[in-house]
């Protein structure tokens, strides 16, 4: 039964622009921003998608050559994210670097939380609002890696705007509301291909109009289609062409629908809405009307998500990200309505004031340090991948302080995070010419992330702590290196092929200053075989002791030292460590031979990235200190 709350006009911040309500929204925004920054960090981690996007951003801004063909998706032949690239380009044009864009995404995510709270409160009261905001903010990291910057970073905010737009169509059906919902859907479809189903949601809410519903539905579908196409015609034409050329040409993919934390909320919202059809009371109809916008966003995509594996499409949980705002609202409305249905009138009225304190309680909980309410989430401080800020600091140390140019950095930097090399050209301008190699000792550079307890105290002189938190540290170690990286011998033998191809090669740079090694097998194609390198050693003063260590780390291709026994070179029995001594040896070893077997237990095919695999080389003291830490991890 529908009851009019007589105290509604006296209720604090009764949803009518009162200072109390605005203060609650502001508190939630600030707290949401704090929580998002704890989750995602102030600087994004180094990530392939980020640098692939950055390539297009720099091509557009620097060379005035911009693409309207997006990046490839998990679906072969399909591309997306043109709108994301456009927004990235606009933000870069306005002067925002990667850290600035990342911070902007956290601001938008906080704003999305406030939108979700506001919409749910408008539809079902403050209990629904707080519940929806809680569901939206909690476990934000599970569907997508929030510490990285990619097109999905924008999806939660757009999802919140879209459910708002769809609800506006239900409440105020008409040309304008349908057009706006269609346009927002079009933008979303060009940010992420999974959002193309928003067109069906626009048609659904248009059909709820009391008059001219079919006309509005046709108008909505046409607006969505035209706007989606107009944002990136080449992209959609090529997608369509590829779809026609290869319809369902891949085996059924795994269904990920049931392996995500959002499923419970989505099912709660949808099932309650369906059950409401069994009730005859006007309140049930009112509940359905209030939930209609959110349900219209959820159901079409869920239907497509459920049948996608039958057509060979991957149904990964991350594609549900744009449903999170709608799912939170639908579930919250169901819960709030159930709670009110259970409570009797006098108790319900007494709880009104308590209910209006809930936004501040939630804001306080979100802003608190520690893991509640982000329990079970991976926070930014848990990441063990360097950030863009780390990389910027490293280039400042090597370039500004050490005088290294880009080529020298790409040549001399060793790190287990190969993606770092994709990002360096965007942080330091390539200079014409290259600094000549200094005969004799050169400085090397090793970039590692360590647990806080692994950091030696005090830090050795050759160690530079780039960033430090309570749990981890990013460290740049500067050993004295003897390897001449200008040129080295490379032998490649594919598995099952008796032919062994050897040649002289080295690190090269293409027109975009991307580093590659000619004749190294291409990564990402499951290549298996043996790679051997013969590295020349620079002349050094007698008495110098250098060491090489081959680590075993996740995502690192582990190798061995295969140099034959020689005066001045001692290798350990497991062939993972070697000492090179010039003490009393005038003509000590001039080369060192290393070997990697790609596709073996020590070197997974996924760990091979097409560049020289990571190993540690330098003066004995520095290598020993790093080796001790890395060996302990293996234990």
């Amino acid at each position, binding site marked *: 039964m*529908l*009851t009019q*709350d007589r105290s509604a006009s006296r209720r604090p911040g*009764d*949803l*009518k622009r009162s200072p109390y309500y605005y203060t609650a929204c502001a508190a939630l925004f600030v707290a949401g921003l704090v929580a998002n920054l704890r989750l995602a960090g102030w600087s994004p981690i180094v990530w392939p998608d980020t640098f692939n996007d950055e390539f297009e951003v720099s*091509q557009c801004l620097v060379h*005035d050559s*911009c*693409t*309207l063909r997006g990046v490839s998706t998990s679906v072969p032949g399909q591309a997306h994210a043109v*709108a994301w690239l*456009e*927004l990235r*380009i*606009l933000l870069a*044009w306005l002067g925002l670097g990667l850290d600035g864009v990342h911070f902007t995404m956290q601001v938008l995510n906080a704003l999305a939380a406030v939108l979700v709270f506001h919409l749910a409160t*408008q539809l*079902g*009261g403050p209990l629904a609002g707080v519940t929806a905001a809680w569901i939206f903010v909690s476990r934000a990291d599970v569907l997508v890696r929030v510490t990285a910057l990619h097109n999905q970073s924008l999806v939660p905010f*757009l999802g919140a*705007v879209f459910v708002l*737009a769809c609800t*506006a169509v239900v*409440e*105020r059906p008409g040309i304008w*509301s349908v057009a*706006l919902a269609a*346009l*927002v859907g079009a*933008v979303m479809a060009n940010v992420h291909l999974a959002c193309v189903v928003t067109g069906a949601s626009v048609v659904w809410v248009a059909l709820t109009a009391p008059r001219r519903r079919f*006309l509005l539905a*046709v108008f909505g579908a046409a607006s969505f289609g035209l706007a989606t196409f107009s*944002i990136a015609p*080449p992209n959609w*034409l090529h997608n369509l*062409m590829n779809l*026609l050329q290869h*319809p369902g040409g891949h085996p059924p993919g795994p269904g990920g629908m049931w392996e995500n934390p959002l499923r419970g909320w989505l099912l709660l919202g949808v099932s309650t809405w369906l059950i409401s059809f069994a*009730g005859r*009371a006007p*309140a049930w109809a*009112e*509940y359905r009307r209030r939930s209609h916008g959110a349900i219209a966003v959820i159901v079409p995509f869920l239907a497509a998500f459920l049948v996608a594996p039958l057509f060979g499409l991957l149904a990964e949980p991350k594609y549900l990200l744009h449903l999170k705002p709608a799912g939170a609202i639908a579930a919250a409305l169901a819960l709030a309505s*159930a709670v*009110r*249905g259970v409570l009797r009138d006098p108790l*319900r009225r007494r709880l009104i004031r308590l209910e209006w304190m809930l936004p501040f309680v939630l804001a306080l909980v979100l802003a608190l340090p520690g893991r509640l309410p982000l329990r079970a989430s991976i926070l930014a401080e848990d990441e063990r991948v360097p950030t863009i800020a780390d990389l910027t600091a490293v280039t400042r140390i090597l370039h500004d302080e050490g005088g290294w140019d880009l*080529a020298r950095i790409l040549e001399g930097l060793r790190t287990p995070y190969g993606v770092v090399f994709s990002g360096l050209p965007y942080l330091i301008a390539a200079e014409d010419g*290259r600094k*000549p*190699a200094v005969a004799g000792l050169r400085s090397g550079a090793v970039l590692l992330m360590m647990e806080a307890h692994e950091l030696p105290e005090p830090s050795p002189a050759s160690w530079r702590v780039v960033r430090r938190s309570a749990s981890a540290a990013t460290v740049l170690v500067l050993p004295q290196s003897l390897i001449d990286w*200008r*040129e080295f011998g490379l032998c490649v033998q594919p598995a099952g092929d008796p032919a062994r191809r050897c040649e*002289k090669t*080295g*690190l*090269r740079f293409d*027109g*975009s200053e991307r580093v590659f090694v000619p004749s190294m097998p291409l990564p990402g194609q499951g290549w298996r075989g043996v790679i051997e390198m013969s590295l020349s050693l620079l002349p050094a003063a007698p008495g110098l002791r250098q060491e090489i260590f081959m680590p075993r780390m996740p995502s690192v291709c582990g190798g061995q030292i295969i140099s034959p026994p020689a005066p001045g070179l001692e290798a350990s029995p497991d062939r993972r460590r070697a000492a090179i001594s010039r003490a009393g040896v005038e003509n000590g070893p001039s080369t060192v031979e290393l070997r990697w077997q790609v596709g073996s237990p020590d070197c997974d095919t996924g760990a091979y990235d097409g560049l020289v695999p990571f190993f540690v080389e330098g003066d004995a003291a520095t290598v020993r200190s790093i080796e001790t830490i890395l060996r302990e991890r293996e234990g």
Partner: protein
Amino acid sequence: MPSHKSNRNRAVRTGVLVGCALALGAATTAAADSATRARGVDLIQGLIAYLERPLLRQCLTPSAGEALAELVGRGELEAVLGGDFVLVRGNVRTDQIEVEIGDRGQRSYGVTLALPGAKSGRPNGEGRRFLFYLTASPGLPNQRAREVLLSVAELFDRAIPESAVELCMEGERRYPRALILASAALEISVVLAALAFGLLAIPSTGERLDL
């Protein structure tokens, strides 16, 4: 007597239903018939070519490689290389030619001849049809190698006949920055408008829902 409005609504409904049926039929036919799909692909390729016609990319035909092979066979390349360099590798791609030469110390040096639009970055030289991009090599800069590479590039550029370059469907058109920035600004405006409309259009509920 049916009103004009109900007749119109009936017509709209009928039109929508017929349109859906046609679309469904077309989709079903396209899905089932590979010939129909092929025709669809041809249609879309034609549309792409029409839309992107002004800036279709240029590509090299097989006669480009033949012309270079003849050049090498005549010994004209050796005159340019002199005795200090040898040709290590020549690779003719869709829209560029990669050339690698080696010196007596077995160090390699490379130059890429790229058709306009095929490669980004600032070229190191220019011929009749190609832009020349030197590949940065580690080690001390070898000025002699640079001169030889550019001479080789000019020789190859003169040897490639006009018939070896044609318009092709490969690659993609690039667009000006102003278009992208305008598009992004428009998208932001749409989102802001939807936000404002939604915030204003959705009334609050003063009622409690009893279930």
